[in-house]
């Protein structure tokens, strides 16, 4: 790993999270919604979030119909981390004094930085799940990171339910020479 490259892209990821955090805080101040968004942290996927997903999330799988991703987050991060420009996000929230992991996401930009693709998202199905849902902060951070990279679009690869992403501005998108189902959104810089 070339540490300066990692530091550069980590700084951009962090800046994207700060931009979104600032926008959320401003919305709370001017419009409201404190209860839904209070005590939220937007940060990197790390050992604590990987452990939480492995130990806590499965406790609520059977009720939801979701039985986990095919791969552990440990394995997924291991595959993405060698590329310094990868996108990652863990969404934590303090609920009734307890730290709860609401969701995680992983992705990567294309080689020429034309687009950023989100490849993996998983959410909590615990009763403590945040009312607005994790897609809002995940997509917001992905879009800001993509802007900082100079990308024109954000793609989502293989969402289980593409229609859920419509209200966030994502529409079906066909690509030649690649497998998978994509939806996309053009970025306004």
């Amino acid at each position, binding site marked *: 790993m070339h540490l300066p490259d990692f530091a550069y892209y980590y700084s951009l990821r962090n800046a994207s999270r700060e931009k979104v955090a600032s926008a959320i805080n401003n919305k709370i101040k001017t419009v409201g919604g404190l209860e839904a968004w209070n005590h939220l942290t937007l940060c990197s996927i790390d050992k604590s979030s990987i452990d939480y997903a492995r130990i806590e999330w499965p406790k609520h799988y059977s009720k939801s119909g979701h039985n986990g991703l095919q791969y552990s987050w440990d394995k997924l991060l291991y595959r993405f981390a060698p590329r310094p420009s990868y996108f990652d996000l863990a969404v934590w929230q303090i609920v009734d004094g307890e730290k709860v992991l609401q969701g995680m996401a992983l992705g990567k930009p294309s080689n020429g930085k034309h687009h950023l693709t989100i490849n993996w998202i998983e959410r909590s199905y615990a009763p403590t799940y945040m009312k607005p849902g994790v897609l*809002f902060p995940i997509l917001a951070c992905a879009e800001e990171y993509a802007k900082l990279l100079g990308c024109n679009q954000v793609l989502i690869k293989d969402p289980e339910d593409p229609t859920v992403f419509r209200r966030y501005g994502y529409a079906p998108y066909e690509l030649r020479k690649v497998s998978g189902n994509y939806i996309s959104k053009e970025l306004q810089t």
Partner: protein
Amino acid sequence: MSKTITANAAALTVETTDELTLAIAAAHARVSEVYAAGSVTLIDTISNKDWLEWDGQHENAIVADSDGLEVADEEEALPVAA
């Protein structure tokens, strides 16, 4: 007077630049460049009414890449013409 000049010159000859600090500085410069003209986040595009009523509790937010652990170097895949 000469002692002051010497002391000031000495103060400027030691600094801490390395590849990491340059990389972080470059990132900060990039952030400033992109956000200089202002930027609208996804959060900002939501109406006040929608913001207060937004409910994502039942969203199927799952995204699971069908290529699994294959994180291939992606070509600049071309969109299919509409």
